[in-house]
């Protein structure tokens, strides 16, 4: 971007993403790890930090973090260490959080951004395990309440390298990361419920220069949109200051999603000294080579790889494979459908238009979709072999979803079996041509686009049963005469 000041600035952006792991129990105790329960019902002495309690590491959470590390092509450290991050806040019952600091679990990974063209990747500096805090509920008056249900739920913190260069790229990174988390089945990625949260560091540097500017932090970016607009606002704010010859001050800003603006939370002089030190209540975390190998062997195909394979194996466009691979369940559905119907292109069209449309309007997940791929495949085959017409196929699809019928049964019940018999269609064509003399005249004068109109009339008159291709052929030959 060319500025009036004559100086080009390049944003340098890094993300810190917190993802709640979908373990059965909490990070350091046996309490169930659930969202939305009555306040303070999912708690025990350990997650309440009562005097005398001790943490015990949740092995499932460790496995999930290793899984993520492998998916992001990190190095999994054989020895890592929990540490205490000390700060006073009422949502943190011990007034320290058990996290990892000097020795994180996973380091040096990456997230690939583009599936075609120039491939770009964003470095992952580290992934570490920690525990979530409780939730403050600010009531009326000057009192606040604390709900400790969330306290102790396992989190992975994923820290990117400052490789991101635009707000859109940051959002793209987050979309990709969320997709991977969901593919692995270790986080539901729900930003509204807070199971995926994002803090951002932004600085500007002069284009071409290696010298980094002063960075600021934005917290509370709780949607993809917030990430994008929040970063954009911060870039604009910093640019304006620099253009006026000002200096960037190291601050932490909160993103106010309602007002769409940044609110200063604290500046550097109030920055915390967290006084990290090794957690003495836990031994160092040792990860055996065998565990890593076992998890690696169980790793599902990741979205990026799957997109590439879909393009190559099924001849899909980048757009199609991107849409189909966004959710693991949808991609699985698609592949089952292709196996059963034998037609990747038709399968892609049906899933993208009909299945995803139906899911969206019903507010449903693919896992809840009542029409199994095998049964949809039968319908597709009926359309492909011209037993029914395309438009009739879509009606049958909706009926199948509604009633749970099989394709054959729905076609029979609705009487939609396609008529391809030439004689039968000819007599309908004759009626249509007779009833539309003006259009016939215009067609003969060269307005051949009217063919679609005639076919439509034939379909209408046949109750959708006529084979549109056969009808078109007949109409064309009649009007040439």
């Amino acid at each position: 971007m060319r500025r009036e000041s004559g100086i080009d600035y390049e944003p340098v952006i890094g993300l810190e993403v917190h993802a709640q792991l979908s373990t059965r129990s909490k990070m350091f105790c046996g309490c169930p790890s659930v969202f939305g329960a009555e306040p303070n019902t999912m708690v025990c002495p350990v997650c309440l930090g009562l005097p005398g309690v001790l943490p015990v590491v949740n092995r499932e959470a460790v496995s999930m973090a290793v899984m993520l590390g492998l998916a992001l092509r990190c190095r999994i450290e054989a020895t890592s260490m929990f540490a205490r991050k000390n700060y006073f806040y009422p949502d943190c019952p011990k007034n320290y959080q058990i996290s990892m600091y000097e020795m994180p679990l996973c380091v040096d990974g990456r997230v690939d951004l583009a599936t075609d063209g120039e491939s770009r990747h964003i470095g992952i500096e580290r992934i570490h395990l920690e525990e979530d805090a409780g939730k403050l509920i600010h009531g009326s008056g000057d009192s606040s309440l604390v709900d400790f249900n969330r306290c102790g739920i396992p989190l992975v913190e994923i820290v990117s390298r400052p490789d991101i260069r635009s707000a859109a790229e940051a959002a793209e990174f987050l979309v990709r990361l969320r997709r991977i988390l969901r593919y692995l089945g270790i986080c539901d990625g729900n930003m509204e419920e807070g199971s995926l949260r994002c803090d951002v560091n932004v600085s500007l540097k002069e284009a071409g220069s290696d010298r980094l500017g002063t960075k600021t932090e934005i917290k509370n970016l709780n949607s993809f949109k917030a990430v994008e607009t929040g970063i954009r606002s911060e870039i604009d704010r910093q640019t304006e200051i620099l253009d006026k010859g000002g200096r960037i001050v190291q601050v932490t800003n909160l993103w106010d999603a309602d007002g769409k603006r940044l609110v200063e939370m604290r500046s550097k002089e109030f920055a915390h000294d967290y006084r990290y030190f090794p957690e003495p209540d836990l031994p160092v975390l040792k990860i055996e080579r065998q565990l890593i190998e076992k998890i690696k062997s169980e790793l599902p195909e990741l979205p990026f790889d799957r997109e590439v394979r879909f393009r190559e194996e099924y001849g899909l466009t980048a757009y199609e494979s991107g849409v189909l691979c966004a959710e693991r369940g949808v991609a699985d559905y698609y592949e089952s459908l292709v196996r059963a119907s034998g037609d990747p292109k038709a399968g892609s069209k049906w899933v993208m238009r009909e299945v995803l449309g139906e899911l969206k309007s019903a507010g449903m997940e693919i896992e809840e979709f009542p029409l199994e791929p095998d049964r949809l495949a039968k319908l597709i085959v009926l359309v492909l072999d011209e037993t029914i017409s395309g438009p009739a196929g879509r009606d049958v699809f909706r009926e199948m979803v509604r009633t749970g019928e099989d394709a054959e049964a729905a076609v029979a019940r609705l009487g939609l079996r396609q008529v391809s018999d030439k004689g039968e269609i000819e007599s309908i064509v004759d009626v249509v041509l007779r009833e539309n003399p003006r259009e016939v005249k215009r067609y003969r004068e060269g307005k051949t686009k009217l063919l679609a109109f005639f076919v439509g009339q034939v379909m209408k008159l046949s109750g959708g049963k006529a084979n549109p291709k056969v009808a078109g052929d007949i109409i064309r030959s009649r009007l040439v005469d």
Partner: protein
Amino acid sequence: MKETISLSIKELLDSYRKGEIRPLEVVRAYRERIEELEGRIGAFIYVSGDDVLKDAEKLDTVDPRSLPLYGVPVAVKDNICTRGCPTTAGSRILEGYRAPYTATAVKRLVEAGAVVMGKTNLDEFAMGSSTENSAFRATANPWNLDYAPGGSSGGSAAAVAAGMAPAALGSDTGGSIRQPASLCGVVGMKGTYGSVSRYGLIAFASSLDQIGPMARNVTDCALIFDVISGHDPNDSTSMIGYSADLSSSGGTGLRGLRIAVPRAVEGCEMSESVSDIFRKTVSTVEDEGAKVGIVDLPGLDASIACYYILANAEASSNLARYDGVRYGFRHDSDSLDGMYEKTRGEGFGEEVKRRILLGTYVLSAGYYDAYYVKAKKLQAMLREAYGKVFHEYDLVMMPTSPTPAFKLGERLEDPISMYLSDIFTTPANIAGLPAISLPAGLSQERLPIGVQLVAGARMESKLINAAVGLERLFGFREKCLPAEGEVI
């Protein structure tokens, strides 16, 4: 009564097994003893109510042979959580707090048939060496009521010395079991770090804290230790595959034992009576056929510096949870920070605040490397040095405390001299090693003086074997106990 309460745990168990006595009688006798002396000694913060009588009565339906501590009354230091009665850690900030769960060590005692007689006094959060830092009361040394019992497990030590319980649990972070045991003329032991679960022990310094037994003799200590030790899935720092069977070891004597004495002991400032008794002990064990060698171990003063950095660093974090938000004492204020400041300012005593400040300082940005990291390095060196010594020796022998009991109030204004009470005890904590203090003799003022043995990691059996032998040599209980009075 006196006859009943003078029985050792071993003798008591024998009487139960022979059907000569019932738990209810024994518990009653101890309750009477507590009632008689508690006003003068002040060993307890809380004395169990009549529920213990019911607990004792229930034991009538149980076969005395089926439980290793059948009907044995025990006192529990008040920094160890016990469901159903208060747990204060000697601090105003936990006044009125009741733990909703019981510590593993206490649970194991009760499951083994023991009866909890009450919660004993201590220095607030176990920070101190005289029990005078308790927010609630001072405890007197049963040998002379003008003297302090030592600390921080001073209430437990005094209770055992005064015959208010045959045994007690203490906790030892830098000597808090062994030093008061020495000053009160009882036996106190800490195991290898990780031998006894810390679950339910209110943390002072997590990497050093260990719960351990205090009793009138070595065998009784071993009996308690056998019950409370062993892996606990609730404590990730508790050793896996560790189990102790110390009480069956009858003491193999001192002959042939290789005992090391750190060269630095000689140069340490200590009372004449302590150095006399220690010197005498050294020559006695040599006479008994043990081989005593002088070894070079890193300076004792370095270990105490290391101790006060690591322990206070951990304490500053461990004690952060006492903020008035959820339980315990709270001083309301207009602002959150105001509430924190007033609650902690008034809820904690001076010594605790001093240590929180020191600990916060050594962990702060810019100081962490110079203090905490350096202390960790020193700790690693010390561990290695002790490891080397145990290649050649079975045990290390040192005095427990540089002085016998001191007068109440005497060191209160001088924290450094108080800190130096721990000079001989902190190395075992820093190196995570098992250690025991047992009474060796009396000073001229008739105050007990203890001797300490330290063994290699997991070598509790060596410790107990040698201690049983030493105990026999000292004959402390036979020679030194007054005919009547506060001490039993």
